[in-house]
């Protein structure tokens, strides 16, 4: 496969390119392009000039590699995307999730789908890749709405022009004023555009209809294998030969023969292709000596200087493409290994800072999701324990929760290692972290009290918080880069972590308080044993409120110190600061009320439940206001959820109140009738 050794490196290559660019268009302007063009050339409408449509047939079939194990080398390729160097595996998941809402295609991995999109673009027209939730968008595009809301590219293609118009209209509307249809149209357009963009990533190595060789004589002259179509890169390896033939053209007296005119046509097509250096999302090639500058293959191929220094890497990419299309896993792995080796030599420092092994493992295991599933099972098991009171069920619930906490922690640690950042830097990351902290504290309390109450709280918090986290994760990249003012590991690891621990403590006290209130309402006249148990729960509620006050206070103050260090004011009445202050005031209010006996145990528990409401306002609610430095969260639709949560809690307290009254009457009448029974 080493056809590059046939000519001496890139200096010749660059020269030939130059020669082609001068010779070809000038000398042979008379030759009719249209007649020479093969009929399958994509000549459809141009969508803003930004992308060409999906090729239908490249003239040479691709066998492809589908198994993840065969694509390992591709998975661990470094790609610069959204400011971060990530493995291609991550990019594959992000793009597929963004397009279809799921990170696999009916069991087929995102990696395998991306490999096919990149290396065999012609085969992707019938994959159900694009999710369009709003049937109105499909109708506006003039295509038939699909039942499962998933569309193939072929289904969308006829409506692309209309979609572009819709998207342009939506784009001209301010972000917060777009309606659902506009949002969806814009999203769909971006998705299709990024898909088409990816299909062009290694175009230089793909057989191209424009580079079809019809005459066997030409094929023999250029020593080409059976085609009939060839890639730009294959032709480039014949550049000296082509240049030599071109030299002769026009000088001989016999006019231009069919072979020569074919070669002229090919040289012009090559020239045109070499000029289209439109960047693709697959920015996998580092510019030597320049950290942070990564380019897609097309850009490198179009740039003579860069092609010279990255010639080997481009060649390895072409080998990967060939091997993929030939279905040759061994050759693919070998080429990928050489490619990755080359890149990590050029960008040694940058690659050295990545942790692709951990990142790919985390992607594939998805510990966050597994933890959520385990918490659901743990929740069910804990309920079973309260029903049957069996020791082994209690133990299983413990084990399940412990395992889930372990996975949850592993997920958080993996993110810390990958991003080299403290655990909480975005709204999404608050959920796993709050879950981990509150559950760890809950399990500690359970180990002291052994009543199952803290265990139940842990499972409750785990299911609720991780379910919300999954929702946020579906919105896209959860490991994004940070804007300048937040880009401070010291403050992120102190202020943000402590304030989030404060949220966690208050959330836990709220969760335990629910159980406390339900129990208290059911047994308004507890037996001494029940009273001991209730007192134990009360102590937990009280303790977690203290814990919450302490951490909310430190978190708030550290936020003030960060603000003072960053822009000179300790306190700026930013809504998020105010939210944190609310938690502090509420906790102080509760503790003082309890201290002075203004409220008793039940009142404190009710206060803790409302504390959960305050936390939800501080945590989520202030993001809805859209002011201040902290409104970083994605929040559309969140308002309704938040208000229904608050309404739900108020309803819960009312129900508890009613239940207490009802149980009081019932147990009292029961107590009256009790002596009369013999």
């Amino acid at each position: 496969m080493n056809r590059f050794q046939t000519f001496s490196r890139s200096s010749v290559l660059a020269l030939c390119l130059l020669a082609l660019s001068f010779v070809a268009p000038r000398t042979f302007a008379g030759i009719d392009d249209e007649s020479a063009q093969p009929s399958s050339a994509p000549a459809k409408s141009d969508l803003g000039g930004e992308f060409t449509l999906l090729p239908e047939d490249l003239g040479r079939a691709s066998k492809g590699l589908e198994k993840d194990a065969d694509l390992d080398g591709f998975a661990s390729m470094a790609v610069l995307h959204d400011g971060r160097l990530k493995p291609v595996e991550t990019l594959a998941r992000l793009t597929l999730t963004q397009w279809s809402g799921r990170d696999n295609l009916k069991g087929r991995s995102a990696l395998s789908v991306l490999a096919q999109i990149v290396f065999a673009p012609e085969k992707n027209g019938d994959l159900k890749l694009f999710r369009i939730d709003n049937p109105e968008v499909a109708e506006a595009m003039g295509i038939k709405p699909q039942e499962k809301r998933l569309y193939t590219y072929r289904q969308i293609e006829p409506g692309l022009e209309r979609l572009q118009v819709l998207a342009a209209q939506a784009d001209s509307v301010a972000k917060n004023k777009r309606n659902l249809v506009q949002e969806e149209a814009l999203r769909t357009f971006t998705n299709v555009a990024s898909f088409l963009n990816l299909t062009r990533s290694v175009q230089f190595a793909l057989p191209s209809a424009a580079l079809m060789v019809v005459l066997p004589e030409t094929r023999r002259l250029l020593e080409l294998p059976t085609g009939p179509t060839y890639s730009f890169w294959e032709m480039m390896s014949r550049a000296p030969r082509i240049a030599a033939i071109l030299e002769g053209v026009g000088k001989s007296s016999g006019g231009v023969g069919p072979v020569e005119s074919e070669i002229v046509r090919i040289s012009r097509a090559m020239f045109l292709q070499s000029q289209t250096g439109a960047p693709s999302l697959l920015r996998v090639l580092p510019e030597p000596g320049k950290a942070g500058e990564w380019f897609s293959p097309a850009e490198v191929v179009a740039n003579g200087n860069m092609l010279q220094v990255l010639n080997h890497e481009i060649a390895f990419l072409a080998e990967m493409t060939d091997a993929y299309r030939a279905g040759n896993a061994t050759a693919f792995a070998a080429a990928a290994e050489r490619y990755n080796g080359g890149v990590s030599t050029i960008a040694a420092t940058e690659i050295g800072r990545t942790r692709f092994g951990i990142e790919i493992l985390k992607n594939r295991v998805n510990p966050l999701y597994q933890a959520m599933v385990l918490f659901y099972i743990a929740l069910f098991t804990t309920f079973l324990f309260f029903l049957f009171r069996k020791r082994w069920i209690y133990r299983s619930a413990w084990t399940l929760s412990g395992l889930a906490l372990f996975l949850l922690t592993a997920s958080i640690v993996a993110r810390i290692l990958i991003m080299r950042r403290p655990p909480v830097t975005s709204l999404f990351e608050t959920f796993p972290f709050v879950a981990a902290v509150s559950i760890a504290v809950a399990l500690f309390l359970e180990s002291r009290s052994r009543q199952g109450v803290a265990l139940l709280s842990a499972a409750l918090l785990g299911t609720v918080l991780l379910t919300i986290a999954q929702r946020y994760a579906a919105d896209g990249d959860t490991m994004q880069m940070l804007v300048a003012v937040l880009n401070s590991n010291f403050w992120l690891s102190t202020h943000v972590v402590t304030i989030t621990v404060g949220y966690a403590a208050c959330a836990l006290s709220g969760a335990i308080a629910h159980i406390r209130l339900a129990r208290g309402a059911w047994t308004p006249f507890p037996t001494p044993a029940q009273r001991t148990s209730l007192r134990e729960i009360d102590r937990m509620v009280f303790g977690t409120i203290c814990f919450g006050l302490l951490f909310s206070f430190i978190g708030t103050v550290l936020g003030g110190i960060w603000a003072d260090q960053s822009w000179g004011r300790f306190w700026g009445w930013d809504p998020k600061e105010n939210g944190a202050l609310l938690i502090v005031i509420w906790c102080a209010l509760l503790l003082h009320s309890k201290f002075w006996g203004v409220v008793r145990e039940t009142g404190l528990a009710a206060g803790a439940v409302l504390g959960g409401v305050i936390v939800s306002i501080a945590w989520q609610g202030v993001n809805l206001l859209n002011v201040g430095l902290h409104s970083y969260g994605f929040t559309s639709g969140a308002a309704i959820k938040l208000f229904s949560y608050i309404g739900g809690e108020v309803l819960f307290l009312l129900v508890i109140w009613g239940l207490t009254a009802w149980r009081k009457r019932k147990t009292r009448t029961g107590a009256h009738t009790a002596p009369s029974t013999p």
Partner: protein
Amino acid sequence: MNPKWRQKAARHPLTKAALHPLITLTGLFMLLLLVIFGTLYQAENGLYEAQRVFFGYVIWVAKVIPFPGTATVLWVLTLQLVLMMTLVLPLVWRKLGLWIVHGGLVLLLVGGFITQTMAVESQLTLAEGETGHFTTAYHEWEVAVWTAHGDTNDVVAQIDDHLRPGKTVKFDPLPASLTVKAYYPNAAAFTSMATGGVMPFLNASRIASMEPRKPEKEAPQNAPGLIATLHVNGAPDRDILLYALERNPLAISIGDQRMFLQLRRRNYPLDFAIKLNDFIRTLHPGTEVAKSFESNIDLLDGAASRALKIWMNNPLRYKGYTFFQASFSIENDGEHSTFAVVTNPGRLLPYISSLMVFGGMLLHFILHFLGYVKRTARS
């Protein structure tokens, strides 16, 4: 341990009334409400306006119902806190944590008071190569009056923005004075086109009329305007109009002296200077997300000059001033860097006080937590 007078005072009905738990709890609850509604009000009307409404002593709900403002609530809570510590809080080691917590709280409130009354926030915007000798206020305005002698200006008066109609300002030693006729904190100005070429006021920019406008949500965006009568030697001379967005000052000749007037953002002179050499903005590779902003400056004080760097989260502190990298803009003449400039004599109090509150809480809770662990271990 506990002195007699303290025991006696603690039992006094007046003390008991003043320190009634319900007062404290109501105060805390009101604070809660104030923060909630203040935040909502801020989202609607901007921070400046929200602070003006909520930080006072009384808030008039729907213009008729009085509600205690943040100042009232905080004063009540502070006085209670001081009284409680002087008379009631037991002098025992077990309560040491609580002593520290509440002492810290008093200090925190004092610090807040000092900041509220004494801190000055202003800004300094410099183009690359430019040197700044003064900073400007965000939303306070002044009428500056000066006479020119060659290249130097002698500033005669700076009038702050409490300009009420009828207020008279003298410009000694010039034989002139101003009597305010109208002052609009936010106004729109119109040229003589609207009045058909009639110019009722003396003005540098051909402004003929002005209309008051609702204050902007962001207070620094307000553009105030002033109409006043100029008196020369005690006799009314002409009506003048000054507007915030005017580029040139109003020039008036009195005898052989020329006087200049301008309504401008209040200036705070520095007794040193800052020269901006280079502003650098770094983006995350391949994105438009800013990774960092930094300004390379020279600090010029007398003959001494020091090259320094100010960047995000790393301000320059000098002579009680703190310079923060606040923002930047790119204009025709190149990059401009804006620094937030703060002087605050109470700057360290929040640090000390919050450390106290934190330490005290930690002490108190750890003592109780250890008790819990011991108890549960026993059972």
